[in-house]
């Protein structure tokens, strides 16, 4: 999966317009609340067969950190 495809999935998840999300974007520029965290756990589990925990989610500073997690998986 390309970076552009992953960003597209994240834009869909965050319900923001296409082109909004950039890798260097800070998480606090997005609606990164508890509901978004659950959605990301679900998304990563469904698409990448992987489980994220609360500690990992809270360690994300930028979108690049999220993309890296999507990177490491099968």
């Amino acid at each position, binding site marked *: 999966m390309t970076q552009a495809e992953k960003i597209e999935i994240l834009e869909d998840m965050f319900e923001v317009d296409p082109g909004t999300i950039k890798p260097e974007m800070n998480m606090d520029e997005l609606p990164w609340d*508890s*509901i978004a*965290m*659950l959605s990301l*756990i*679900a998304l990563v589990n469904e698409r990448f067969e992987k489980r994220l*925990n*609360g500690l990992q989610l809270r360690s994300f500073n930028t979108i690049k950190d999220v993309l890296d997690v999507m990177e490491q998986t099968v």
Partner: protein
Amino acid sequence: MKNSTLLTISSYLPDIILTNEELSTLYSGWTAEKIFEKTGIKTRHISEKNETAGDLGKKAARKLFAEYSIDPQSIDFILFATQSPDYFLPSTACILQDQLGIPTTSGALDFNLGCSAYVYGLSLAKGLIAGNIASNVLLITAETYSKYINPMDKSTRTIFGDGAAATLISRDDSEGILEFVLGTDGSGYDRLIVPAGGMRCSRSSKTAAECTDESENVRSQDNLFMEGTDIFSFTIGRVPPLVSKTLEKNQCSIDDIDLFVFHQANKYMLNFLRKKCKIPEEKFYMNFEDCGNTVSASIPIALTRAVSDGTLKCGMKVMLVGFGVGLSWSAVVINW
């Protein structure tokens, strides 16, 4: 081997109703619709200040006796599950023996589990009957998490409601309660917890001090804390294999099960789990819009509702699945 059957269930919800409209006035940026959309819950029933889990359980048991003409004198064991007991000691089950008119020759004990408690209770009842220790077990699951919840903690207050259920499990010629799969992972004990109030950390002015988290939820050490992300992660990791193992142990497939009744946690989690377990929507029961997540009472409340609305019929094979605080999980197949 002595067989046991789950005979009858009655449930009780307290009178006070907490609506999404009321909650939305407290939490900035949250509308009643948003709360419903995320949780699948519109209202929850809340116990009165002086109304305990023992009171709710007693009402559920009295309803059971009245609805099914059960003589309390026929009960010979009481199992009472709660995490908000009337007292540290004695057991609430002992108090209910007297108040419900159950013989003094009965056994009675409390056990402390939450969302997995109902299936655990059925496993204990089956064991007591198989071991020739009891013939008619009254299992009461009653919870009042509202007493632990900080009014300004939307992560828990939007989800949990108080409630109770009473179930009669009896010795029977037919095999009603089939094979169980249970599990525990205590490493996650602090992911869903009331930190203060027990002997590890007594309540004090220090534990009562309120803090605000990054999602603007307010709570103290005396209150219920739930790390929702970790609980969600736990369930999506544990529940699908639990369902597979339970099918395997009962030598059946999803096609052989007529109805799945999971712990009624919240809509988001249940929809995700249903899809992940590949359970058809029409076989997956959800009915908690008006009562929320009632912890140990959620599965039996759902069962009574499934009977009332005609979804659950005699002769059906049903899988019950509990999961949550502990962390703890449990599943069983029953012939209804």
